[in-house]
């Protein structure tokens, strides 16, 4: 296996739009600008940033869908735009909003076609399909036509379609859109298990912090197409918000919540000054990831 799953150097993409008539110069949108990053094989990386930051554009370039306007990239050691079909065997891509299933046909048929596209033998196909459909609990959906499935059911089948060829690197762009709580949990634990057991690399964009927290160890924040922050999940939680949440439960059942910042406030002073009586329980928590990310985005805007 390659040591690095993804290497990019000054990767850039601009979109051009004719806004002021045909003969006037086109307006340029810089979706991604000079993005340089490396992801080692086996890493699980979250790609975060506000709407329009350039996450999807980056994923689409790395998966060979979009041609870059500048820079270079290697994915699984392959140049995505020069050797697309070799790349396809190495990567799996899940877009929350796309379909690769045939509308009027049973899911099983679409999956079989993909198995043929990826040159799977019949035995491999059967084994992998069974494994996946049990993990995502869709065994009884496989014989129904796609048009009869609910959005969440269809999404589960789409995920199976993207994973059928056992890719080494997974790109997930908002994979949990439309999934119910149950399905989200199934998908997360499946991805986690898959990455731990087989060492696959995961690059995930999501607005659901639950996805990020459960699956990823490393966080890349991008905004306006540039990399702003590259850190680990642990550091993100401890370093970027020192605030603590304290919840005190009294014997009579009532409770109080405080949050304080140990950097600016003195904890002994805080405990002394508060008027506690008959404390029955006390918890100290880090702020939720959502809060941290919100603060980060706010800092970006200002």
């Amino acid at each position: 296996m390659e040591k690095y799953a993804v290497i990019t150097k000054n990767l850039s993409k601009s979109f051009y739009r004719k806004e002021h008539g045909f003969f006037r110069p086109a307006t340029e949108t810089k979706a991604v600008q000079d993005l340089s990053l490396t992801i080692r094989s086996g890493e699980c990386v979250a790609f975060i940033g506000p709407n329009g930051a350039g996450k999807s554009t980056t994923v689409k370039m790395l998966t060979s869908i979009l041609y870059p306007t500048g820079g270079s990239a290697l994915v699984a050691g392959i140049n995505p735009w020069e050797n697309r079909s070799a790349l396809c065997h190495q990567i799996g891509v899940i877009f929350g909003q796309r379909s690769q299933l045939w509308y009027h046909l049973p899911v099983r048929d679409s999956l079989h076609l993909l198995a043929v596209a990826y040159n799977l033998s019949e035995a491999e196909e059967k084994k992998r399909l069974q494994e996946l459909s049990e993990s995502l609990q869709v065994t009884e959906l496989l014989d129904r036509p796609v048009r009869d499935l609910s959005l969440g059911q269809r999404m589960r089948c789409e995920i199976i379609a993207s994973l059928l060829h056992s890719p080494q690197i997974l790109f997930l762009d908002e994979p949990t859109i439309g999934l119910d709580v149950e399905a989200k949990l199934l998908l997360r634990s499946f991805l986690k298990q898959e990455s731990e057991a087989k060492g696959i690399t995961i690059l995930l964009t999501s607005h659901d912090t639950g996805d990020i927290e459960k699956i990823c160890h490393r966080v890349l924040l991008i905004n306006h197409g540039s990399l702003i922050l590259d850190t680990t999940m642990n550091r993100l939680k401890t370093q970027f918000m020192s605030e603590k949440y304290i919840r005190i439960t009294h014997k009579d059942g009532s409770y109080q919540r405080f949050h304080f910042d140990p950097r600016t406030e003195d904890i002994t002073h805080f405990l002394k000054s508060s008027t506690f009586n008959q404390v029955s329980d006390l918890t100290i928590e880090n702020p939720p990831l959502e809060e941290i990310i919100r603060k980060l985005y706010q800092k970006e805007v200002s």
Partner: protein
Amino acid sequence: MADNQIKFFLELIRMNMKHSYALKTAFWLRVLFMLISNGIMLVGWGVMFHQFQSINGWTFSDFMFMTGLNITAFSIWSLFFRGTGIYMAHLIENGGLDHFLLTPKNILFHISCSASNPAGWGDFITGFCLILASNLFCFSNVFLVLIFLICSVLCFLTIGFFFSALNFWLTGFSDLSERLFYIFFNLSGYPGSIYSDWAKILLLTVFPIGFISILPVEILKTFSLPSFLYLITGISFLFIGSILFFYNGLKRYKSGNQVNTRGYQ
């Protein structure tokens, strides 16, 4: 790996057929109405030839052969390669190529073979019967007719690739590209003898429908090797050109974030 490509495309065509037969009533109705529509068209031309006997030297039998070739080729296009034309144009416009780009098989034919119009069976039956009924057809030239048929299908594919790929450059063009394709198809249904020499030059180069409606009948009536070679090299040249045109456009593909939104053009 060539064998894997072939296995995949056979499976794809099987899926495509199955998909078009999934709604059975609609399937049979479309076949039936296509037969009726073709019947009406033929009665019209039949009346015309009855009046005039021949049009610039072409008899009704010559016309039947040409129409048969044209409709059979078109039916093969609409049964097996319906993905060129409006389907591909919409995919390009709406960012739908992503999935095809992510599959390790030839993208152009993967898209082309991903749609099918059941009405094509009606055309296929009509066209096949017309070829058989024409005096120009006999068993000694089956092989030649087969070559004409292949060239005619390539001609439709060329036109389809070209007009679909235009959508890489022009946004909002997809429905127009379908319309242009049908203009070419309809033009290819007129007897090749009606055109002036200048028009023929155009129709055998940039508007390549003469490869369907002029050359085959003329070659069958009086065989000429140069014409035959021109037919084969000309159409190969155009076909390869349209493929290169598509791949060139593919670099401009913008993808997109389609969810169903309002606004229809």
